[in-house]
Every structure is written in structure tokens, then in C-alpha cells.
């Protein structure tokens, strides 16, 4: 009797698993023809990554999400977003989101957006292909003009607190800078939104992030009546002050990356790219290639 009941519940559980697999089935990286035939492209973007990408009660939001929608439109297919957090580094993200999938459900996407375009990364990740840079990332500081009118050097932050998202490029720079002299001033937010809130609530008057994120914070702060400025003081010892951002696909889907590249070129040439960034208070910068 007990055993029979168990069997029923087990079958129900199996059906649920099958249902989950069914919806996930389309989330496997494929070449262009397969994507077009299926009528849907799956695109990976990071979660909790304003202004580029995040998810809230209104669904997927942000610059990269809008870019993803335009890519789908250009290819005349529907779009499905795979939204996940960042792993320890880009190599892990490429593995989990582009060529191997997650450990539990083995899902991955056709295209990953917001991938730093770097030859070394491309070479050491044989199963992913990096291409189509569409934006130039830079590092910057946003600061409250009435409290900190000018930030010409990071010397400002020996005594003034500065917010940063935990375990990011900015955190790494601030923790190391000037032999640890800024250590006591760094206020780390567990997420970018946490760091942003420290600034919006006036607990700190400066925040370090990418320039686009800094501009987004200034854009949000303006709504709260805080006038902000973006500065790029010298950053001695920082790994890179800027780098191009492109896309990645699985190694067997190069033709898909060409088609997506055409969609991105179209966005840039028609001026639509700049308009998308503008809606988030961010000025678009063309990728700078060596």
C-alpha cells in the first residue's frame, strides 16, 4: 500500500521533470539554421547587472536585454533570455552559459552578450568563440557634486568613503591602491544595487564602477535630487582602464555569430545603439580595438 503510493508520487515527480526538460529543450546552443528554423534565439545576459541586464517584476530589463531583442528582430525570430549570476570568472561563465551548461539542468544559450573581447580569453577557451565588439567599457567614479565637487585623484578617498560592488574590478583596485591606504574607506556592497543604495541614500558620496554603471547611478541619483559627476582619475596599478565588449557563441555556431554581428553593426550604423544606451543615462562608446 505504502509502496504503491510512493510509486504514484514518483511518476508524478518524473512527469514534472520531463515537463521541465521540455521547456528547457530549446535552450541549447545551435548554428544559425537551427536557430532560424526553431523560430527562437536564446540569449544569455547577467542577472543583477544594471544598467546592462537584470530581472524584476516586469521581466528582463536593461541595455543588453534591449540589444538582445533587436538581434532577434533582425534575425526574424523570437527571443528567450537565459539570466544567471556571474561565476568566479569569464572562463566559468562561458562554460556554464555557452558550451556545457549548468550542472543541474545542462541548459545553455545560443549567444552570450557582454563578453569582454580579449584574444587571450578566446584562445584559452577552445569551445567558445568571441567576436563582434559593440561597446567600450571603462572604469570611472561617480561622485556627489555638492559634497565632493572634484575627484582628480584617488587621494580623495583616504578620508572620504567610497562605495563599490564586492569582489569586482573596482573593489580589487581600491583594496590594493596606494598600498592599502584606502582600505578603511571602502564600503563594499554585496550586490551592485547595495553599493548603489549607499550612494543614493547619502551614506557615501562616491562610487567606483564601470563608466556605464557610474552614469546609471548618476541618472538614478538625479531623480532623487542628487547632482553627480563622472570622473576618471588616474588609476595606478589597475589591470585595465578599458576594454571592448562583444559576444560569444559555441565553437560550432560561428555562422550564428556572423549573423548576430550583422545585427549589432546595423544597430550601431542606424544610431539605434546610442539611443538604447541613452535611455539608461549612459553614453555609448565605440569599441576601441588594438
Amino acid at each position, binding site marked *: 500500500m*505504502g*509502496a504503491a*503510493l*510512493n510509486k504514484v508520487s*514518483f511518476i508524478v*515527480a518524473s512527469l*514534472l521533470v520531463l515537463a521541465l526538460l521540455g521547456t528547457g529543450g530549446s535552450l541549447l546552443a545551435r548554428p544559425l539554421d537551427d536557430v532560424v528554423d526553431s523560430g527562437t534565439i536564446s540569449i544569455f545576459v*547577467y*542577472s543583477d*547587472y544594471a544598467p*546592462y541586464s537584470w530581472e524584476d517584476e516586469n521581466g528582463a530589463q536593461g541595455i543588453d536585454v534591449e540589444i538582445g531583442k533587436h538581434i532577434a528582430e533582425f534575425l526574424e525570430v523570437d527571443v528567450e533570455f537565459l539570466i*544567471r*549570476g*556571474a*561565476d*568566479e*570568472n*569569464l*572562463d566559468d561563465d562561458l562554460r*556554464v552559459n555557452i558550451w556545457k551548461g*549548468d*550542472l*543541474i*539542468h545542462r*541548459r545553455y544559450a545560443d549567444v552570450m552578450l*557582454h*563578453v*569582454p573581447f*580579449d584574444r*587571450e*580569453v578566446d584562445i584559452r577557451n577552445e569551445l567558445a568563440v568571441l567576436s563582434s565588439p559593440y561597446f567600450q*567599457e571603462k*572604469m570611472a567614479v561617480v561622485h556627489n557634486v555638492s559634497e565632493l565637487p572634484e575627484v582628480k585623484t584617488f587621494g580623495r578617498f583616504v578620508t572620504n568613503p567610497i562605495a563599490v560592488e*564586492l*569582489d*569586482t*574590478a*573596482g573593489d*580589487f583596485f581600491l*583594496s*590594493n591602491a596606494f598600498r*592599502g591606504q584606502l*582600505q*578603511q*574607506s*571602502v*564600503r*563594499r556592497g*554585496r550586490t551592485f544595487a547595495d553599493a548603489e543604495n549607499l550612494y543614493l541614500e547619502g551614506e557615501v558620496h562616491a562610487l567606483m564602477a*564601470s563608466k556605464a554603471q557610474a552614469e546609471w547611478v548618476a541618472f538614478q541619483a538625479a531623480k532623487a535630487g542628487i547632482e553627480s559627476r563622472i570622473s576618471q582619475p588616474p588609476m595606478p*596599478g*589597475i*589591470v*585595465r582602464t578599458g*576594454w571592448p*565588449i562583444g559576444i560569444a557563441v559555441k565553437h560550432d555556431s560561428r555562422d550564428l555569430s556572423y549573423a548576430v554581428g550583422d545585427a549589432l553593426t546595423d544597430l550601431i550604423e542606424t544610431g539605434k545603439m546610442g539611443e538604447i544606451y541613452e535611455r539608461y543615462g549612459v553614453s555609448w562608446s565605440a569599441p576601441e580595438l588594438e
Partner: protein
Amino acid sequence: MKRKQTLLAFAGSLTLGAACFSTSAIADVSVDDLMNDQATTGDIVTNGLGPRGQRFSPLDTLNKDNIKNLYPVWSFSFGGEKQRGQESQPLIKDGVMYVTGSYSRMWAIDIASGEELWQYDARLPEGILPCCDVVNRGAAILGDKVYFGTLDAKIVALDAKTGKVVWRKTIGDYEAGYSYTAAPLIVPTEAHGPLILTGNSGGEFGVVGVVEARNPETGETVWSRPVIEGHMGTLNGEESTMTGTKNATWPGDMWENGGGATWLGGTYDPDTKLAYFGTGNPAPWNSHLRPGDNLHSASRIAIDPETGEIEWGFQTTPNDAWDYDGVNEFISFDMEKDGETVKAGATADRNGFFYVLDRTNGEFISATPFVQNITWAEGMDENGKPIWNPENRPGDPTESADGKKGEAIFAVPGFLGGKNWMPMAYSQNTKNFYVPSNEWGMDLWNEPVTYKKGAAYLGAGFTIKPVFDDYIGSLKAVDPVSGEVKWEYKNKAPLWGGVLTTAGGLVFTGTPEGYLKAFDDETGEELWKFQTGTGIVSSPITWEQDGEQYVAIVAGWGGAVPLWGGEVAKVVNYLNQGGSVWVFKIPEGLASK
């Protein structure tokens, strides 16, 4: 005594009706049963064969002479499409085995027939990023419930008879990188009755180690104790005390995200009434950013379960720079030294040293190397503090900010440790510890440029390397009084499974090559082996049922080792995955031969 209870219960069920399964004879497990687990050989109701985790069985039916007649009784497949690492230790109660498996699954199996009674599958969400394979290390049992943790950082209480969920509570937010793999620990208290204790596990950054105590009936939290100084604990829903002194050994706000995950769970000593937990490495990984000892990362701590207060802490690797997680099990034992009995505890650390401490107050007694060619420290001073080799500390990445790969240093042990998660055993007969260890080191260098969440970043590169050409795994008999290694069994692949020792003079452990092996506890001579068909990375058990001594092991290759490449991959990359339990006994009439 316990046997009689079982028989009575069984007789009772017979009067109710012959259609009942033997499972209806399950007697509720009391907290006394848990505390006496080591002495009661008819069941295994704790992880570690007793709350101290000695993994010693007083059974001696099976001995050095008759072990050659040990044969499998049945094997049970976990099934499913997914296998990977099986690190679980089964529990045994009234003829039923409760065993957990990869991907947060659990089974109840009728031992007499090897047939499944029920299976529970946690429905895991997609966003889990477990760092080190999808393992589970075992369950806990109390009353009429069995408990285990799932990869999405939840603890689940199941009805032991049906496998149905009684309650399910969140330990951490899996989306923020938390997970759970250890066996929960159940301890008695006067103030709250029995409590179920869990640690936490998760990604490398932002997770702060914590020990939490819950009411086993309801799952409600009674107290919590963060292990990193500066954080507040709670008791009965209110703030209790701060752990240590804020900023005493951490700069700035780094303590807020200081690491120290308590991912391997704990042990309990009914004598001192203290729960012992190990704490993981500190964050961030670059030790130059966090000058100071960074307490209580890479430590053993003793917690009073009545209040959740830390009674003492002992740090094995201050200001860790090598990823020497201090999570290893702390095993209470009474040590005869210079004619006195010392209330001692022992732990074999990732950093390659075997420590003996006074378990009542955490005072240092001794530390001796249990792996060879250790480079990171020359030894320990009289207080148990490492005497560092400064040239073997990984460099500060900012020193090589030109974007070039920094110079590599070779450190022993490697980041997977002289001993990793796999528990050692203590024999009350030989007074030796049997330590599953690995002889390997690591090359460490500053990475040129990597990216994290779309931004350029300096990382550390590392690769693990064998110290010797012909073997990595090394099972050692260690005398805790002298620190002397009495014997050593060398294994080609790294050892990743726990150890069991018995009054019959046997030491059992499994190998990645798929063998369950038995050794002579005095000489290390290999007496018996059985090929399970896949690698073993779990802990063996033994118990008595119907007058016969049984042995069981979970098989299934995986865990952290196959996730790393390099030279170590050469000795493990041919191993096949699996997922099964094997049960052995001596066929009738052969026990005396």
C-alpha cells in the same frame, strides 16, 4: 538492550496484522541513541559512528583471519541519468538503510532484501553553481524523521517511514552562492531539548561561515553563530553576542564578507558537551589585502550548544594564502600521555599538519606533519603558530600589474590539502588515527588578466601536481602521542574516501580505482579488496544484524578531484562514474573459518 526494544516493537506490529512491512517495526530514535551510537552495534544513527566521529566499531566478528570470506550481499543502484560523486555515509536503523546521493537524493532500503522502500528527489532550481561537485555527505536521524541538506541550501526533514517532507527550511540563498552538502549534527541540550546543527557552504566570496541550531521537530532556528569576528549571533530570535572583537584581526569592512564557510559540518563530545566545527579559508583569496590573522577563518571552534557561544577557537592557518580550508573534522579521544589521561581532540588539517589539542579549552598540545615535503611552513612554534617560509607565500598580484604572468611558486600541500573532506578514523584498540591523505603540491602564480562579471580582473592561477611519480594517495596510521607515522599504504590515485576501523583489527577505506580495501590495523598489510565498478569517495560503515556483521560502502566516482586538470588528471581521467551502495557479509558458516 536496543535489540530487545526492536524485537518487542516487531512483535507488536505482528499482532496488528501480518501485512505490515518490516519497516513498521522502526522504533523512534532518541537523542540518547545518538550519543550511545558507537557502543550499540546494531545500528548506525550518526555520521561518524558516534557523535565524536571516531569511525570505530567495537564489532570483532569480522577479523583479520576471516575477512577473506567477506562477499557482497546486494548492490543497489541510485539510477537516474545523473551520477557524479557519491560521498555519503549511510545510516542504519531497524533493518533499514537511509542513504543520500548526488543531486540531493535520498533512499530508504530494506537491508534484508536490498529493495527500495522509498526515494526522495529534491527538485533543484537551475541557478545553483555548486563549486565542488553535486555531492551529499549523509543524513541525520531523530525520532521518526530523517534529515539532510540539499544543494539549493535547504535542510529537509522527511518522515522516516514514507520519505514524505515534514518540513523544509532555508539555510542560505542559493542565488547568492550558498549550498549545502554536509551531514547535519544532532546534539542534546538542557535548555532547548535536542538541536539539529548545520554549517553552510558556498562560493568563495561574500559567504560568511555560520553554525545554526534548529528545533528538529519544527525546523525553527534556536541560535546562530557566525564564525567571523564582528558578526552578531542570535539566540531565541534575538541578537545574542558578537563573535570576537570587530576589526581585531581584519582591516576595514572586510570582516563583513570574510569567508570561513563551515561546509563540512561538525562533531560533538558528550563529555565536554561541546560541538566542534571547522571553518574554511578567508576571503578574498589575496592574503596581502587582509593583513592580520583573520579570525576565525581556517580554525577549529568549540561551541556551547546551550547558547551558541564560542568556547574556544584554534586557528591552524592564520592569514591563509594557500586555500588551506580549516574545515576538517575534530575527533574527541582520550589520550594516554606520560601516565595521564588527557581529554584530547585531533584534526588533520588541509595544511598538512596533524594537530592534537586539549578539547576542553583548545590549548595546543602538538602538531606534526602527516604528509611529506611541506613547504609553506617549517613547523609550528610552542603555541601551534606556523613558522612561515616567506618565499613560499603567493605574491601580491599588484606587484605584477603589467599584465604578465607572474613567477610561479610551488607550495606543498596543494590547495586540495594534505587531507580534504574525507574523514579519518580513531581505533580504541591500537590508539592510532588512520588518516586518508594525499601527497601533492601546487604551482601558484599571478594570472595575466581575467574577467569577472564583464570586468578586467587579476586572478591567481594554480595547478595541482603530484609530489612523487608513483603515487598520490597515502593512508597512514598516525600515533597521536608521538605524531609518528606507524605505517603507510600508497595508492596511485588521490584518496578521497573516509576510513573505518574496527575492534576486529581492520581498517577499511575505498579508492578512486574502485576498490573497497581492508588493512591490518597494526601493520598496514592489505588483507582484502573488492572491485565496486566505479570509484569510491565515501565512508564505509559496519553493523550487526541478525547475529552477522555487515559492511557497506557507497560507490560513485566524483568530488573535487576530477574537476581539476593538470598532472593529477592523468591518474583519474579514465575512471567511470556510478552511483550505488554495496553491502557485504560473510556467508553463513564461514565466519569462524
